[in-house]
């Protein structure tokens, strides 16, 4: 019989060790999955985790790493702040699309005017688009106590339809020979989010992601607001006695996460993606949830987790090319990672004893 005994304080060691243990366990379980699909598991794991970093064509893929990690880190840093406070915004995917739509709308509206002000204005609009979209679940939560989980998620389906409508309707490229999708912003110098150093994948969105990591670190660990957020998440009653106003936290956390997700969408549509199409979003908003947990809701952890997750995306693409591994396999792989992480987390808060230990 195995017994769990609650630790008086979360274990420092396991806080750091669980993500690593979870990654190793996922590699083993993922290897089994790949073997079941008839692929050599060792080869598959090597292609996913090794090829993009140090393989033959690594120089190209290292750039892709930042392109994928940027939005994941940016969105996850916003989400983690809310998760710390027990505010579950799971509609980042929708806020991401809204940011992209708002900024692309501006650019396409003024096209083909060239101006230095356009790109900054698009950034503002992108953040605002995500923020305002996140205000819907926030205000409904504050005013009526409606579950932010359900509302934010429902809104993803709403905005996905809106995206398709825009791609086929109002934002469709008038010179596109009837093909769906907007003009490509990569061909519009004032709106294009270029690589700051050509070929590295380092665009303004990646810079913003790094800034977001630093900003949320200061917020959560050096500022009174971060302290309030953490207290509200761990001891809601104590937080209220200490004068924390829950409504303000809800608005702040959802607003921050929404703005970050909107920014991520803006940098994506003006850079790597270039266009508004009905399949513009690729699930960054959902994967960012995994990133936030894998990074232990800590800014530095999220930075590392975002890079790792980006690696699985690129490695997954490579495995698809080189080994014919289905693209969905990588999605399963990412889902498994979250399972193992949540499961092993028991070691952080509990001691495991063999035998029927006296439960204190």
């Amino acid at each position, binding site marked *: 019989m195995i017994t769990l005994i609650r630790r008086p304080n979360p274990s420092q060691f396991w806080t750091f060790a669980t993500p690593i243990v979870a990654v190793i366990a996922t590699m083993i379980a993922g290897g089994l999955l790949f073997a079941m699909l008839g692929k050599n598991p060792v080869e598959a794991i090597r292609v996913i985790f090794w090829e993009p970093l140090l393989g033959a064509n690594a120089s190209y893929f290292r750039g892709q790493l930042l392109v994928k990690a940027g939005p994941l880190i940016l969105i996850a840093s916003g989400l983690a702040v809310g998760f710390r406070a027990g505010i579950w915004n799971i509609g980042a995917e929708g806020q991401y699309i809204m940011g992209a739509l708002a900024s692309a709308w501006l650019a396409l509206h003024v096209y083909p005017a060239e101006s230095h002000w356009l790109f900054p204005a698009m950034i503002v609009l992108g953040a605002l688009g995500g923020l305002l979209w996140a205000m819907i679940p926030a205000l409904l939560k504050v005013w009526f106590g409606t579950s932010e989980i359900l509302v934010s998620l429902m809104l993803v389906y709403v905005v996905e339809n*809106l995206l398709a*409508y825009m791609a086929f309707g109002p934002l469709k490229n008038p010179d596109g020979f009837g093909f769906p999708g907007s003009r490509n912003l990569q061909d519009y110098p004032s709106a294009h989010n270029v690589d700051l150093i050509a070929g590295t994948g380092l665009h303004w969105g990646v810079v913003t992601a790094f800034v977001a990591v630093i900003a949320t670190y200061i917020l959560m660990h050096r500022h009174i607001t971060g302290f309030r957020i953490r207290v509200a998440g761990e001891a809601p009653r104590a937080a209220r006695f200490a004068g924390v106003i829950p409504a303000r936290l809800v608005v702040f956390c959802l607003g921050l996460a929404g703005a970050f997700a909107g920014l991520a969408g803006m940098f994506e549509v003006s850079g790597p993606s270039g266009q508004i199409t009905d399949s513009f979003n690729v699930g960054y908003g959902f994967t960012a949830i995994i990133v936030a947990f894998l990074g232990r809701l800590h800014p530095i952890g999220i930075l590392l987790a975002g890079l790792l997750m980006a690696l699985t995306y690129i490695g997954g693409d490579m495995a698809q090319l080189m080994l014919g591994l289905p693209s969905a396999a990588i999605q399963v792989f990412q889902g498994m990672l979250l399972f193992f992480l*949540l499961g092993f987390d028991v070691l952080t808060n509990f001691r495991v004893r063999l035998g029927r230990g006296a439960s204190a």
Partner: protein
Amino acid sequence: MWLHRMGADLKFWAMGQRMSIGGIDIVTLAAMLMAASTPVLLAATGELVAEKSGVLNLGVEGMMIMGAVAGFAAAVATGSPVLGIVAGALAGALMATLFAFLTQIFLSNQVATGLALTLFGLGLSALIGKGYEGVRPPPTAKLDFGPLADIPVIGPIFFSHDWIVYASLLLVAVVWFVLRYTRAGLILRAVGESHDAAHALGYRVVAVRFAALGFGGALAGLGGAYLSLVRVPQWTEGMTAGAGWIALAIVVFASWRPWRVLLGAYMFGGITALQLQLQAAGYAIPVHILSIAPYVITIVVLVILSALHRHGVQAAPASLGKSFHASS
């Protein structure tokens, strides 16, 4: 025999005056409603039982889609839609067991684990379903009610469905009865209201929750299988399209009461059916705008309900979403 005659006469009469408003045939709409509601009704009834035991499983969407793909694959392989439905329920239950292991044994966060279940289910179903796109499943026959089906208006609305539609209604009644009038139901509710008190009384909290979650998963899987085998009937990636989340919303809307779940699911089904009929009737509203209606209305209903409950009785089971550990 006389019933048959009367039915035929009435049918003749009704042919002259079809009830239609703005190009939408009301009878077709009402008949569609029951079929459109069934997947969500099944999933929501299952989730109700799980939540009554005090566990919030946000993985309904993942369990449904796994049920959809497993049911589809099994039905295609065996040629039997019934075996497909059973396989769908099993797949859902298996997913729920995974969730139960993590949340009840490893005491993981229920919200995060539920999300993980959904993400995992969406990925795994896409992987399994790769070879099944464009395949036709074996058909599920409608139940034959004989002359009853010929009664105008009532016939097509109530007596023109497959057995799963009626089974889902029966399930709601059974869940209601068991929760309300049986000892098992009482224990389940006790565990959901206060797991510490139930534990002190000697009930096995974790075992009860495993059972409730498994049942909930099976129903979600069943709903998914119904979707891919009967409702659509086809397999496409991500075909549940938020139905699992809507089921979760319906449980909240229903204030955790089985009959209100039925009401909520049928309301939702009605909106879906109406939306599809409007598309078919060729109204000049873009398809994408019509498609958002079910989600927007779900949000609106949730808001109204939470506004009403704000200062009233707390309807949710008191231990909902809290981890249970005997020492704490």
